[in-house]
Structure formats: structure tokens, C-alpha cells
């Protein structure tokens, strides 16, 4: 069977523009959460979010003009911009700039989004109501469609292979990486640019998720303390924004061109809860089955897992996932570290699975596991190391990354150190 490795990463996150800057800040225990000041939040129950630091591009800030011309920026919702930036970074990191027909045709894109152009649809709704249909921009549709991240990336970089987009709520990023890896295994592509992008931080986004009772509303005065997975005082997730993209590559293709190899994608599992539109099934069975399937694909056993990047949103569902992991690892619980990086960057929804898979990859590269911030009083006792407060140096050869989405859609990725 063809094997798939990660040869490039790119990221725009609430802790910065770029994979390395974000990773260093995650390891340092920084939080990207703050009060939202860009729009009215007085009448919203959740007034905080993890926002991308915008600036001139220095010190890890995100400067949109470096990634897309200003006249193009106004035609798209920000998730497209973030996805384009992350894809640019990932391709640059991989050193993959296909020029020949064959290389272009064998390189595809699969970048999804959970929601896509939320705010742009609201704005167009106002235009339609107040000014009529003749004032709807020709860029309204192509600037809001979820697959237009993949479309724009393919146009910019001349990637003429499979062009696809995943839409599975908060599992989007993980499903995109898993499905893209399978396209490579099947021989439909040698290289895939895969991940997720999201820009949900808006009045409609905060209002909508708050109505689902999914957001933290009790820590508005202390934003950095709001995302606290597994802690007894957690009360919902903190919304984030950004994009994560990886370059996936068939192993021999990567070796032939001397590419840097971060890790191998060895396992991928998927399952459905068939239970509730927003709540995970209480027995954690969907999570358990998808982790089990991913391990089986990898040919590994649960005791091989060193690190789990949890879905861990800082909601009541944290303990359901933890229970499923305990069931999975059994007696090996004490050798596993599991943390939620959502404690630092919030919940990036459709981008979460991709940025978290990148963190799991870097945990393998650097033999260090990122912390779970704000875990002051664990809600339940567990033998699993939840990495409270501070990053921990430890051997990491196998990492698992979990993502679970509304609709009861689950995805797990297993990543493994690649030894030449």
C-alpha cells in the first residue's frame, strides 16, 4: 500500500500567523482569548473569542495584504483568506511548487470549512432586503462557497488534481486530512494540500452557538480563563478562527525529491453517533469506535499511543471523550498524555482538526506535549496525564488527534514518527 507523509504545514491561528510562532506560544502556555471589541457584544451572552492577531506581519501578526490583493480580499469572507494564507505557507514549507503538467495534475486540494461564509451571507441578506436583488454582488456566491478555498488555492498554485472540500462541522479539518491521504493511497494524487479554514467570529456566529448553549458565558471578565477543558468550572467553548493546512505526500515521492518529512499519517477512523444533532452520545461509543478504527488502520495497539490531542472543547462532552479514551487505552492509561490545545487557541470549528493534527505532528517532531491551560480542578479522576498548565517533555512516537462534530460526526487521525 502507498504510504502518506506530511511534508509541509501552514497555519493562521489566534496565537499568530505561522506554524512555528503558534507552536512556540502554545508551548509557552499563552492564550489567544480576549474580549471582542470589533463589533457590538453588549447584548450577546458570550463576549469573548480567540481572535487572529492582526498587524503589519511582524512578530507573528497576520497581515492580509501579504496573502491576497486588497481588491480580492473584499470579494471573499475571511475563511478563504485564512485558508489561502495557510496553504501558501504549507506549500512553501514543503518546497512544492509544481511546474510540469504531470506534477500539477498529480497535486490536489482538499480544504474544508464547517460553516463557510457566515457573515457575508448575513450582509447580502441586508442588501437584498434594503436595496433589492440588483445590488447582490457577482462575488457574493464565489466568496462564500465552502469549496472556494480549495478552488482559490488550486488557481493560485496551478494544482490540477482532485479538488474537493469537506463539510463536517468541527471534524472538517481531520476528515480533510484523512480523506486526502486516502486519495493519495488510491493513486488519485501524489500530493494533496489538505486542511480546514473558518471565520465564525461575528455577531451571528456568537449568537448562533450561544443559542445552542455551546459557548462559555461565565468568564467574560477573564477571557484567558474561559477555555478550561476537563476543569470542573468549564462552561462551554471559546470560539476561535483561522486555518490549518498540511501538504500530504506519497512517501516515495517525498523521498525522491529529498523533502523534509514531519511524520507519517498511518491511521484514520470515522464514525457516526446517530444520537443527537449537537450532543455526543453519552456512552462515548462513537468516539471509541472511530479511535479504534484509526488504530486498526495503523496496525497499532492502544498501548502504542504516546500523545492524544483531544477534541476537548471545554464543554460537558470533555468527560465523555475522556471516558472513551480510558476504555480504549485500558491498563496503558498511565503512559498516555492527552491535552486540549483548545485551552489556548479556542475552538476553530472546521479548522480545528487540521491545526490540532499539526500540533500532534510537532509533538512527535519535538518530543514535547502541549499543555491543557486552566486545568485547576479536574472534574474527574483519571490515570491519564492531562498535561495541566505546562508543556511536558516526553517521548512521542505515536500521536492520535480526535475531532467530533455537530451531527454526531467523528474523526481520528493517527500520526507516527517516520524513521528513514
Amino acid at each position, binding site marked *: 500500500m502507498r504510504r502518506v507523509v506530511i511534508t509541509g504545514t501552514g497555519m493562521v491561528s489566534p496565537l499568530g500567523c505561522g506554524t512555528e510562532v503558534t507552536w512556540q506560544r502554545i508551548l509557552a502556555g499563552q492564550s489567544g482569548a480576549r474580549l471582542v471589541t470589533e463589533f457590538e457584544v453588549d447584548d450577546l451572552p458570550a463576549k469573548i473569542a480567540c481572535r487572529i492577531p492582526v498587524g503589519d506581519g511582524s512578530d507573528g501578526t497576520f497581515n492580509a495584504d501579504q496573502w491576497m*490583493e486588497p*481588491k480580492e480580499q473584499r470579494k471573499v469572507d475571511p475563511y478563504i483568506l485564512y485558508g489561502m494564507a495557510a496553504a501558501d505557507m504549507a506549500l512553501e514549507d514543503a518546497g512544492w511548487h509544481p511546474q510540469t503538467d504531470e506534477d500539477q495534475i498529480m497535486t490536489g486540494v482538499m480544504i474544508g470549512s464547517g460553516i463557510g461564509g457566515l457573515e457575508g451571507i448575513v450582509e447580502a441578506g441586508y442588501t437584498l432586503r434594503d436595496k433589492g436583488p440588483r*445590488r447582490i*454582488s457577482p*462575488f457574493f456566491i*464565489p466568496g462564500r462557497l465552502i469549496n472556494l478555498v480549495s478552488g482559490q488555492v488550486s488557481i493560485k498554485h496551478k494544482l490540477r488534481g482532485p479538488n474537493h472540500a469537506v463539510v463536517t462541522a468541527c471534524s472538517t479539518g481531520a476528515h480533510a486530512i484523512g480523506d486526502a491521504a486516502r486519495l493519495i493511497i488510491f493513486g488519485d494524487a501524489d500530493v494533496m494540500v489538505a486542511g480546514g479554514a473558518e471565520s465564525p467570529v461575528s455577531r451571528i456566529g456568537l449568537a448562533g452557538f450561544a443559542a445552542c448553549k455551546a459557548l462559555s458565558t461565565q468568564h467574560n471578565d477573564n477571557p484567558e480563563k474561559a477555555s478550561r477543558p476537563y476543569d470542573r468550572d468549564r462552561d462551554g467553548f471559546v470560539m476561535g478562527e483561522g486555518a490549518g493546512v498540511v501538504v500530504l505526500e506519497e512517501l516515495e515521492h517525498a523521498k525522491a525529491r529529498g523533502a523534509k518529512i514531519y511524520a507519517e499519517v498511518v491511521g484514520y477512523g470515522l464514525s457516526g453517533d446517530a444520537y443527537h444533532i449537537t450532543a455526543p452520545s453519552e456512552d462515548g461509543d462513537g468516539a471509541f469506535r472511530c479511535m479504534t478504527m484509526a488504530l486498526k488502520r495503523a496496525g497499532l495497539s492502544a498501548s502504542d499511543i504516546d500523545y492524544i490531542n483531544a477534541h476537548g472543547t471545554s464543554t460537558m462532552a470533555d468527560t465523555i471523550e475522556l471516558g472513551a479514551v480510558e476504555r480504549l487505552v485500558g491498563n496503558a492509561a498511565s503512559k498516555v498524555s492527552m491535552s486540549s490545545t483548545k485551552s489556548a487557541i479556542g475552538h476553530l470549528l472546521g479548522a480545528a482538526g487540521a491545526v490540532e493534527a499539526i500540533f500532534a505532528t510537532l509533538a512527535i517532531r519535538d518530543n514535547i506535549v502541549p499543555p491543557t491551560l486552566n486545568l485547576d480542578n479536574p472534574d474527574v479522576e483519571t490515570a491519564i496525564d492531562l498535561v495541566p498548565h505546562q508543556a511536558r517533555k516526553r517521548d512521542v512516537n505515536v500521536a492520535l488527534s480526535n475531532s467530533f462534530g455537530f451531527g454526531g460526526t467523528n474523526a481520528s487521525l493517527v500520526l507516527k514518527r517516520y524513521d528513514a
Partner: protein
Amino acid sequence: MSDIAERVKKIVIDHLGVDADKVVEGASFIDDLGADSLDTVELVMAFEEEFGVEIPDDAADSILTVGDAVKFIEKAQA
């Protein structure tokens, strides 16, 4: 340049992100200023909004250059 021509020019510069010195009377939106078919639809909408005129689709199809736009708007407002 007339007031209308100045305002048309400003809209074209803003929407297409081109240098002011390229936006001359004979400049074609698509051939000279890098617009695509969607850009030209949006330009026509911007002209309608700015000048409070209606530009029917068949008329819009014949507005190919900066000068065409200025002429149409001058006539519509006369």
C-alpha cells in the same frame, strides 16, 4: 475631465486595484485593466449606485471601456 469622468475613474481604481494613470478614456476593462466578466458586472453595479441610474443588461454589455461608461452615464443623466 468632467465630474462624472472623475467619479467613474475613482470607482474603477477602487474596484480593479489598478494605477490611476492606466484608467484612461480608451482603456478596456477586460483587455487593459485586468477585469474578468464578474468584475465588469460589479463595476456596472457600482456605477448604478454612485450615479443613481439604471443600466439594463443589454446596455451593460456594450460598456467595454472607461469612456463607454462615462458616455452612458452622461446620457442617462442628461
